[in-house]
């Protein structure tokens, strides 16, 4: 066989996601991410192939290499320290005796993870007078509840709550810790993970166990939501992740389940905490949509043409007994407030019925609603990507179709029909 020219490093630029892993790996400073794409400096490149082994999208390759000549990727070892850690933990978020439902959803997912790993599923409950929440965590799947009950924890503050969680984690060494990606949960998780010097993956949409390594595979939208990335915390423990409300499903509440409780002291007194809560003003805006837990959502997009179009969407939502959602394009245009936004940078929703009117179906919108039970799309463009996920699609002008839908839905009392369904279902 004739010897080819010296091999050169090449890049398939359209596959590159600009993750900078190659840049970090290159010993010769020969590859740089410029405007989101890796650029090779051929003066410096020594064709050592290090970048190729780390590239997650396989966009780097050697040209001028004969088949079969390519090297195998080295396996990356999993640490042994991990062995000390066992158990899946869920942080139970509660305020004013109310547990945030995301905690039960995480226990639902956590149950499956713990069963796969054949380890214990535990709830981490911090607050004041939280025995009821601990008992309840058993009904939703926890085997054990680690409880710190202290008046200092009456209202959530980062420092004492994080300190309590860290004490528990250091003492009992769970392998996995899951926290809701709520305002409170995000405030807490970042503080804990930094103190423990471990990995934390935000806003996971999928969590499962890698069969070979037993690592937690944390999947989340990345790089603008156009692609999904599976992230691993290989060596450090615990493996920590946050998950948004409505992404996972809670198990049915089962009062026959009991939970073993382990109580620990907080070890901090009020005078040791510098941050004081001096006031709280609850929201009085009762119209604020509760998108996350709505059973029916009717959403409008840029296809409405103008802000007044949302009146029609509100009427549609009323006729179906639902709440109003929106695409980011309409929020950015100032047609409607951000509380209504569905999608990657808005709420994740999982209603029984989602009706999208004049929404094109950009991936960032889809990731927020594609686990809805039934999706209906009304769009004038037959090629709109929203039709790829819709169970029922109507190609047409929303201003022609939606008024008819409202009229008929009222006539046939759809609201009641849906209500009946959702309570029995």
């Amino acid at each position, binding site marked *: 066989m004739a010897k080819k020219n010296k091999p050169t490093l090449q890049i398939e630029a359209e596959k590159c996601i600009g993750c900078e892993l190659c840049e970090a790996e290159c010993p010769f400073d020969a590859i740089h991410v410029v405007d989101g794409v890796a650029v090779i400096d051929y003066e410096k490149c020594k064709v050592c192939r290090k970048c190729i082994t780390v590239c997650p999208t396989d966009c780097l390759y050697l040209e001028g290499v004969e088949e079969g000549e390519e090297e195998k990727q080295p396996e990356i070892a999993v640490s042994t320290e991990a062995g000390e850690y066992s158990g899946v933990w869920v942080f139970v978020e509660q305020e004013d005796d109310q547990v945030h439902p995301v905690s039960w959803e995480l226990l639902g997912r956590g149950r499956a993870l713990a069963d796969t790993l054949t380890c214990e599923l535990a709830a981490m409950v911090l607050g004041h007078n939280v025995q009821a929440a601990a008992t309840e965590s058993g009904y939703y799947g926890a085997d054990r509840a680690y409880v710190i009950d202290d008046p200092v924890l009456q209202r959530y503050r980062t420092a004492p709550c994080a300190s309590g969680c860290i004490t528990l984690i250091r003492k009992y060494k769970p392998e996995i810790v899951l926290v809701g990606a709520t305002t409170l949960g995000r405030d807490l998780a970042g503080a804990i993970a930094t103190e423990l010097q471990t990995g934390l993956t935000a806003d996971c949409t999928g969590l499962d166990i890698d069969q070979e390594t037993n690592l937690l595979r944390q999947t989340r939208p990345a790089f603008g939501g156009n692609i999904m990335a599976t992230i691993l915390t290989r060596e450090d423990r615990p493996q920590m992740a946050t998950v948004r409300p409505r992404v996972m499903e809670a198990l049915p509440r089962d009062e026959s389940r009991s939970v073993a409780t382990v109580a620990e002291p907080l070890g901090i007194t009020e005078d040791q905490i510098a941050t004081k809560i001096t006031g709280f003003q609850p929201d009085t805006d009762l119209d604020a949509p509760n998108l996350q837990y709505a059973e029916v959502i009717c959403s409008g997009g840029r296809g409405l043409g103008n802000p007044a179009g949302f009146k029609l969407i509100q009427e549609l939502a009323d006729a179906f007994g639902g709440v109003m959602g929106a695409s980011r394009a309409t929020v950015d245009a100032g047609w409607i407030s951000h509380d209504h936004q569905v999608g990657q940078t808005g709420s994740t929703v999982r209603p029984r019925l989602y009706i999208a009117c004049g929404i094109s179906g950009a991936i960032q919108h889809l990731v927020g609603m594609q686990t809805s039970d039934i999706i209906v799309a009304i769009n004038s463009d037959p090629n709109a990507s929203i039709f790829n*996920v819709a169970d029922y699609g109507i190609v047409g002008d929303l201003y022609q179709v939606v008024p008819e839908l409202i*009229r008929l839905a009222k006539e046939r009392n759809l609201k009641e029909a849906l209500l009946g369904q959702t309570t029995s279902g």
Partner: protein
Amino acid sequence: MLRMVVCVKQVPDTTEVRIDPETNTLIREGVPSILNPFDAHATEAAVQLKEKYGGHITALSMGPPQAAEALKKCITFGVDQAVLLSDRAFAGSDTLATSCAVTAGLRKIAQEDGLDLVLCGKQAIDGDTAQVGPGIASRLGFPQITYAIGIDKIELDQRTIKVHRRLERGIETVQAPLPALVTCVEEMNELRYASLPNMIRAARYKPEVWTAADLDVDEESLGLHGSPTVVARIFAPPEREPGEMIPGGADDPAGAAASLLDKLLEHLAAGAGE
């Protein structure tokens, strides 16, 4: 006099990111880079605090050399000084390694000039993690006040700060000692137009660049090495099965609407029987 540092990030303007419908990949060419919008509000908050209490503001960013543009933008707001942490050693950082490098930068600033208040945006719009702010606060041992919508007051002699926070069910007011770290949401303030002198200053401004060697930090905790999380796999999002198209939307909207309702009721009834 308040010594403030605003931590900012340069991000792709996500509203401009488009997908190639043929290949279903990101079209990155021509996507402008901007100052992360939440960081713009944090910067404005610092400038307003300086107007009220007097002080000095440094904008600090970690990123490639091009990120100097985001820092110049901060200068147009009225920031006094800007520092860019830029080094190949920082590449591939996850949120833990990022907070490590930024904290090292903050420590250096604190040593040289003193530090009363760190301001951050609540999150960066490209990653949406909201983890770096709390990470920095933990490392510095500062109280962390996230999701701030307003700074009620600062008592310079008592060294306290009082902040309103936007929570899911209302607005909380907290008081903490200085130095502290505050992360800002967009309700914090309205951005103003840059003044002409600030724009001229920004155009000529060259941020100071610090490399890993300038910082008192263990290189092992930076960049790829200091990042516990790794991206193991990248794939296209799974698609839902396409469903049924109901005809007549254009010429018989009433008929199409009626047939949709029939199907919906049927579907719901079937679902309830499962």
